[in-house]
């Protein structure tokens, strides 16, 4: 029984982690492609159109990966989490079905037109199809976060005698206080990913002294989008999201901040340290007194409940994992602001394209926004444990009753093998597109 739950969780975690590597770029990059295309329509400078067309190639590849790894997500609610689906399908089925009807059709219909229709449609309509693809991908994100928000903070429901969750207020799903902060936070994080990808490719061209016109354009666009999104992701949206956790999931908040004991006179903020769950303390701790209280409640001496105030059975299942996920996300987020700030200062002084160490830095930053996005989601998901629906349905109660651990392990191993192959193919093909570079005056 324990094994079964473990493999079910591993399979969902693995497939969703791999899947989300792609949509985060899809959502951010679609915005930047629309920006390039818009810039072209306004200035009529071919460079912008060529840039849009170059990124569309990466986008198409990335989108295809997102689609093929996304279909298993929708299936797995039923295959591996049947009990959860049965009990809550009347509610989360709403938002998931809406995602299919409103965003997937929009994205997929216009993606074909966007990729193959430039000649047939002309530039203005081509821009419109690009915008609609962008809209579809962002609508998809919205409905997924609406689903996620309901699991974190259930609203608009009642529970029947047979344990089923029944919707009694449709609009509550969309006015959920958890939804807007999480959505904005997540979308900004996806713009960070695309900004870093675009500026990394630009830096690669500048350092290699090829396609330098595009190198400059990509670096400039990337660092400007990057600075704005890196700042906004931390404040106000990150702050807002964390306050939601502190208010509605105090035990999660204590675990992710590494607060084992309530401190009188205000809590310190932990910068570094390893959670020692057995002895209920942090090893090798470096912390700044009272700052956490101030950040959370704007009072230096506000009380923050430590883990000691809660029942152990309600502790997040994996406290060290949650703590690290959160600290990695916050640490990387801080580094992003730093490097983007430096890059923008050099851009303003018109020295950026010659400042090699920043270009190298931008290029090597490429994987880190992916890590930050992933650990951010781990913070949310590990933080919700041991619950599927917070405080109402435990994860152990949601798994499929008839699927044995042997069958789940079989499919988990299959997914691991298949996705490793997909990841390898993606890297080879994306590398090939980037190495070839943008083509001049294709239009």
């Amino acid at each position, binding site marked *: 029984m324990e094994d079964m739950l473990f493999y079910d969780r591993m399979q969902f975690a693995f497939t969703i982690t791999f899947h989300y590597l792609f949509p985060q770029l899809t959502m951010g990059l679609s915005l930047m492609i629309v920006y390039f295309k818009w810039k072209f329509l306004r200035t009529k400078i071919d460079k912008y159109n060529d840039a849009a067309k170059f990124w569309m190639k990466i986008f198409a590849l990335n989108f*295809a990966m997102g689609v093929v790894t996304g279909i298993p997500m929708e299936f797995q609610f039923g295959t591996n989490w049947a009990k959860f689906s049965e009990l809550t399908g009347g509610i989360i089925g709403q938002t*998931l*079905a809406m995602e299919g009807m409103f965003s997937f*059709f929009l994205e997929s*219909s216009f993606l*074909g037109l966007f990729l193959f229709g430039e000649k047939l449609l002309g530039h203005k309509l081509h821009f419109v199809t690009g915008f609609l693809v962008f809209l579809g991908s962002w609508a998809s994100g919205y409905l997924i976060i609406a689903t996620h928000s309901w699991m974190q903070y259930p609203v608009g429901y009642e529970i029947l005698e047979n344990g089923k969750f029944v919707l009694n207020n449709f609009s509550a799903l969309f006015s959920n206080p958890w939804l807007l902060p999480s959505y904005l936070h997540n979308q900004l994080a996806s713009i960070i990913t695309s900004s870093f990808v675009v500026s990394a490719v630009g830096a690669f061209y500048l350092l290699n002294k090829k396609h330098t016109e595009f190198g400059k354009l990509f670096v400039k666009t990337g660092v400007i989008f990057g600075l704005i999104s890196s700042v906004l992701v931390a404040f106000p949206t990150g702050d807002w999201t964390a306050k939601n956790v502190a208010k509605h999931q105090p035990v999660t908040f204590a675990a992710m901040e590494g607060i084992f004991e309530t401190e009188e006179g205000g809590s310190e903020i932990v910068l570094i340290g390893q959670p020692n769950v057995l002895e209920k303390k942090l090893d090798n701790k470096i912390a700044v007194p009272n700052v956490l209280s101030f950040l959370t409640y704007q009072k230096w001496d506000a009380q923050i409940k430590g883990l000691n105030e809660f029942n152990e059975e309600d502790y997040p299942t994996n406290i060290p994992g949650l703590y690290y996920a959160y600290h990695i996300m916050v640490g990387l987020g801080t580094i992003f602001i730093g490097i983007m700030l430096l890059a923008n200062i050099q851009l303003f002084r018109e020295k950026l394209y010659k400042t090699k160490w920043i270009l190298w830095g931008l290029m090597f930053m490429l994987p880190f926004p992916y890590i930050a996005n992933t650990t951010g989601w781990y913070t949310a998901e590990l933080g919700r444990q041991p619950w599927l629906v917070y405080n109402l349905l435990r994860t152990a109660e949601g798994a499929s009753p008839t699927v044995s651990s042997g069958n789940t392990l079989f499919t988990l191993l299959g997914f691991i093998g298949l996705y490793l192959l997909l990841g390898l193919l993606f890297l080879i093909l994306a590398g090939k597109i980037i190495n070839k570079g943008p083509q001049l005056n294709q239009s």
Partner: protein
Amino acid sequence: MELFWYIVLMCMLAIYVILDGYDFGAGIIHLFFAKKEKDKKAITNAIGPFWDANEVWLIAAGGVLFFAFPTLYASSFSGFYLPLIIILWLLIFRAVGLELRGQIHNKMWESIWDKAFGISSLLLALFFGVALGNVVRGVNLGNVVNGVSTHEAHYFFLPLWNPTFSPQTEQLGIIDWFTLLLGIIGVVSLTIHGANWIIFKTNSNLNNKLKRIVFNLNFVLLGLIVISLLIWHIIEPKPFHNFLSNPWLWIFPVITLIGVLGLFNVKGFKKDGYGFLFSSLFLFGGLTSTVASIFPKVLPSTNTVNPDLTIYNVAAHDYGLSVGVYWFIIAIILVIAYFTIQYRVFKGKMDDVGYGEH
């Protein structure tokens, strides 16, 4: 309300089968009949800009199933665990084959992805037929052993096959000779359907050969349907009871018959699109006749201990179903608009689209 969502779901599934069906069929043709590079190119051009949007119908139908009939979604997706995951893998392989083939110009690379695309299309057509077979045959709900349920009444689990490959034992498998027969019908009918689509959308040299193939396979199809009707009583003693009590339901078998008989005239059609029209009628009629024969059951129980799953005992609560009607109507109008635009822009023959070239 349940009936409304049942009809919506069945229509979405039928649209999915008609649309992605021609993709699978094109893949099968690609595997067996396209030898020259030019012919292969024509086939991928004919489906290239469409397959992704077509596949969305499956995801959207899955979403509507989850939302309107959560118990059926939970029961069938966990019970048919292995075949569903295998279908997912095949869908991934197929998409990857189609999208990656043109990325590197190398004979070996191209032939590997050609095979991946073709074989996964073939297996998907087979599996979807097998899936339909499983639904009408029914499953051992509650995993009853010796008259006692070992699970909750609406849960079950099926292995891929049992040692006897028989649909009449207590411990059933996904693949038995009955479901396999429906799988083969699936392969044959989608091959015909895919060929019709290629004839419709291209000027390839293959078209005349494809017309002959459609004509010949149509005899096979008709034969298989007659066989399946003759043995149908083995899995359902009263296969026609719904049709006898509701004579208007005969419209579905009649549509099927028009589709299959019309195809015998494939060589004489004045317009290239007629063949596709008739095979679409056949697929729509075949699917609807099959599900109509077991209505209101959606997953029959093969034991006497646990009741069948019907649209009434698997549906979500009334409020959710009613509120869904509003957004669904808005969404479906938008979807029809998208498809009209898409098919209008890519109307006519597709030989020059240059799909998959980078």
